[in-house]
């Protein structure tokens, strides 16, 4: 079965803002920032009344997951062979957004076409808040484990961690100062184009940047030529 054959099983229409409900706001706002997030209240279907034999084995379960992911209205699909469970986060027909949609019946039909029979009445089909449960999680994932640096045990790391974190935070501040010093120095070194680089640029009163700024700027230039494997 090729992708086209599979995805054409359902009607997938994307609406534009012009044709869809005018209520939906594609943006979330945090302070002055605005992020386009295409979904809000959607659905999560969990199918757990599955006969594991229908999933065949892990590779076939993975391929079913892949096939479900091919569908535009499916945001995430997980086919867990071990627990004989399928979870699909999808954009339902009832959702107020401009993206492609599908119904639970569509989903049940697609699973049936893949040899997995599910009882619609036993399906948990719950509301899913894409913004808080998916998007916000991905942007603020929780820590699920901790690796100490190489050569150190977990106990040693516990003792060292606080110092390291403090040092790392200081390093971030120093790095930024160095960068700003580099920028000042760069404009001084390229006076001929400085006003093109920074609109309305006026050289500082003192003819030259401080010695520290010049030294930092120079050092930065050299350091930037470090090892190059992915630029590290």
């Amino acid at each position, binding site marked *: 079965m090729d992708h086209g054959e599979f995805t054409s099983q359902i009607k997938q229409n994307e609406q534009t803002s012009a044709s869809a409900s005018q209520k939906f706001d594609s943006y979330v706002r945090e302070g002055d920032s605005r992020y386009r997030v295409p979904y809000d209240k959607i659905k999560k279907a969990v199918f757990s009344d599955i006969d594991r034999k229908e999933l065949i084995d892990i590779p076939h379960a993975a391929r079913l997951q892949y096939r479900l992911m091919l569908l*535009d209205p499916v945001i995430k699909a*997980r086919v867990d062979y071990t627990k004989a469970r399928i979870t699909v986060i999808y954009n339902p027909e009832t959702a107020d957004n401009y993206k492609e949609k599908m119904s639970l019946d569509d989903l049940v039909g697609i699973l049936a076409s893949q040899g997995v029979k599910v009882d619609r009445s036993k399906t948990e089909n719950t509301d899913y808040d894409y913004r808080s449960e998916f998007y916000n999680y991905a*942007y603020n994932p929780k820590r699920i484990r901790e690796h100490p640096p190489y050569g150190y045990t977990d106990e040693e790391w516990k003792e060292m961690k606080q110092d390291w974190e403090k040092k790392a935070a200081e390093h971030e501040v120093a790095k930024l100062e160095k960068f700003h010093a580099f920028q000042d120095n760069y404009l001084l070194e390229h006076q001929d184009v400085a006003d093109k680089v920074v609109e309305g640029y006026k050289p500082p009163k003192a003819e030259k940047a401080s010695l520290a700024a010049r030294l930092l700027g120079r050092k930065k230039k050299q350091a930037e030529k470090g090892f190059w494997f992915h630029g590290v």
Partner: protein
Amino acid sequence: MSAEDGRAVQVMAQDKILAPYHRTMEEIEKLPVIEATKTVCPECKLIVDGTIYKDEDNVMIRKYCPEHNWTIEKYWEDYDMYMKMRRFNYFGRGFDNPNYITDTKGANCPFDCGMCERHKSHTGLANVVVTNRCHLSCWYCFFYAKEGEPIYEPSLDEIKHIYHNLRSQKPIPANAIQITGGEPTMHPRIVEVIQEAKEAGFDQIQLNTTGINIGLNPDLAYKVKHAGTSTLYMSFDGVSKRANPKNHWEVPLTLDAVRKSGLTVVLVPTVIRTINDHELGAMINFALNNLDVVRAVNFQPVSLVGRMPTRLREKQRITIPGAIKLIEQQTNGVVAKEDWFSVPYIGGLNRFIEALTGEYKYDLSIHFACGAGTYVFVDSDNRIIPITRFVDVNGLVEHLQRAVNEMEGKSKLARKAIAAKALLSFNKFIDKKNQPKSVNFGKLLMSVLLKHDFASVGKFQMKTLFLGMMHFQDEYTYDIHRVEKCDIHYAMPDGEVLPFCTFNVFPEVYRDKVQKQYSIPASEWQSTHNDWNYGKDKYVRNVKQLESLPAYRKTYGQLVDYFAMPVNGGQGVKSFAVETFKDEAAAKPVAKDEQRSEGDSCGCGCGGEESAGGCGCGGQ
């Protein structure tokens, strides 16, 4: 040798290259197995067993899908090199805070990405796509927005959000970023996009560009440098026009702008057998001629993503050792196959520093088959010396790893003593007689390891060129053991992070799917960008004018052939630009489509004389 003999030799060589594809399964199954892995069926994406086996000098992968039969592909074109590189394979650390939690814990790899908790490497290089608009229309590219397609161009706020996500990774925040596209310089706020990356704390900022906008608008070079760009990661597929139709004409202008602004460049050739594989030596020579600004040449053997005819695939396939062996031939053995090491070797150095200081360092724990590299040094007499001719890199890394193992669980003092002992015996890995006259490598390495003084490496690198190889995967070569260790990641607008080789190999469920979700439909984009249409984005090249510029004539007309010098073997490189230049001077003035029109398929200016599929230039 007569022309006929020459052709016969060529045919034999070609047969040898293709032979591993044309054995019976009975013959193949008798060949020695090296190891087992997991892979996917290129047709239906079923996860199947992969067998990595030896076929004469080649390392091959075979896989069987009950529905789609056997697939045979070249994995690595040198058995000895494979076995040598394999010794340095190690598992790094994944994320302590993976962005997506799966029920399956990665059992369905490579379809559980996001990043999942099974993944074995942290982000070594983060790619952030800032637009899918592009000023070229290369025939082979599936990525840029074509007429009527949605536009993916995150706002500055959204990009800052992505940066913050990358910098929050634990235990090691992403520190190197590549701003990419489409053509990233088409983002209307590209300078701020770069500056914000610096403000977010990234140390290394690469701008992945054709270089064309920078070459034509040198002020942009100053702006992006001032904003914090470390280097341009610039497509460069050959020295000649035919091999590099994408930006051959603009490269001289770009290099000039880079030179003046203080930027640096990494040249990035995509290597395709039968298309530009004859110019690998010439590209290295070109880089040596521009060593003041070129830091590295990062060859990328082609990843044959998407379904393609078997014969074409077999003909065009080249792997890392295949390219390395051609470099050896084309540089008179100056850069030989023994001179390359795999990326995890560098991880060995970093682990030593980490164990000594207790501070996290980058892992570089990718699979050994993904990448290789070496440094070459230009000595005062123009002799080119790869680092491996005076440093026993294998021995050194093993030596440091032994010290790391010994340090585990020891007191701070004991660690220092172990480190001191390791460093004292350091010199035995350096052959002082053969090191370049103007460098004391032992001292340099000591200051890196003890003082973490990368500025000294910077000075060293002024006279060195890094040669890298990165072979991205495709459905035929796919190896799940590779992708689960991938450290080149894409940060997505939905907050997920994806390995490069799932993002691009399965775009239908990753790259295209998520970017489509977050794109702006064409009609909406057009209504908010009144003056804009797809055609207006396209670059129209004036070949005649570009070829008449002094920068063009100087860049290609005054190249020194390092390999023609007796100290470097005395055989000049093929497709050396001076010859091309002479030929061109004598030939007809300009190609018939010197002015490309908007409708052209490739934007290469090559003249489009050959074959089907666009202009036939190879289009890279």
